[in-house]
């Protein structure tokens, strides 16, 4: 466990604080919902034999991909470690009158939690690297494997760290966002401790 300014970093607390602002990570979150669903469907069509009807998103966040895929008619189950993010995703689904099976679960116990298999298992938006070593990632991937139907596929999206300078602290700007009458500037710092970094 790493520490920042003498405080323990807690991922649940991180997402609790981020949840109300999560949509600001995107220039236009509403447009991203539809756009990403189209992109994912293209990937399904080009890479998966057979029909895709059922999808499990094991790191759904506030529902960016789950909402769009449900709008396209897929049967979607979605879980996340953060109860705060899941609560916001449920509200977004209700507003759109979408029937998505949301729940709170750690991706490392995805099959133990869902006890079901799906045509597609998703973990997008760089969620997997929250697991801080290869053993934990293997444990999660074994659960994803159990959640995948025979003939199905698992899709992970991650940052490409090969394109990043991991030798010194990084500052990343997300940009300026207008949200109603409010204006926000978003940026990150990455402070490295070997191949683990504190993201602020």
């Amino acid at each position, binding site marked *: 466990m790493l520490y920042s300014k003498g405080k323990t970093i807690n991922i649940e607390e991180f997402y609790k604080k981020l949840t109300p602002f999560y949509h600001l990570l995107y220039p236009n979150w509403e447009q991203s919902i539809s756009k990403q669903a189209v992109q994912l469907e293209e990937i399904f069509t080009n890479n998966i034999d057979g029909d895709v009807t059922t999808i499990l998103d094991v790191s759904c966040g506030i529902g960016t991909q789950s909402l769009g895929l449900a709008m396209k008619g897929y049967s979607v189950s979605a879980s996340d470690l953060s109860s705060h993010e899941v609560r916001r995703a449920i509200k977004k689904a209700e507003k759109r009158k979408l029937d998505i099976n949301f729940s709170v679960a750690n991706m490392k116990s995805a099959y133990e939690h869902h006890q079901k298999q799906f045509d597609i298992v998703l973990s997008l938006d760089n969620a997997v690297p929250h697991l*801080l070593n290869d053993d934990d990632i*293997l444990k999660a991937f074994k659960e994803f494997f159990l959640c995948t139907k025979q003939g199905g596929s698992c899709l*992970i*999206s*991650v940052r490409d760290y090969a394109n990043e300078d991991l030798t010194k602290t990084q500052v990343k700007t997300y940009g300026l966002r207008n949200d109603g009458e409010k204006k926000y500037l978003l940026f990150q710092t990455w402070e490295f401790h070997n191949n683990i970094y504190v993201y602020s």
Partner: protein
Amino acid sequence: MYIVEDTGNDNCNTRVMRSQYYAVSIEVLMNIMQKAGFTDVSRIDDIFYQPIIIGKKL
């Protein structure tokens, strides 16, 4: 993540949220997917905003 709220006044409100990540390479992740049982593990670029790793369960 630093979120600076511009209130229009001289001082802004800043919130900071801290987490941690493992800067794991795509190559390592692909190997771990294979260890977990997935086959035909490959990488898809240029469609989604991040690279996608896809593995099949035969």
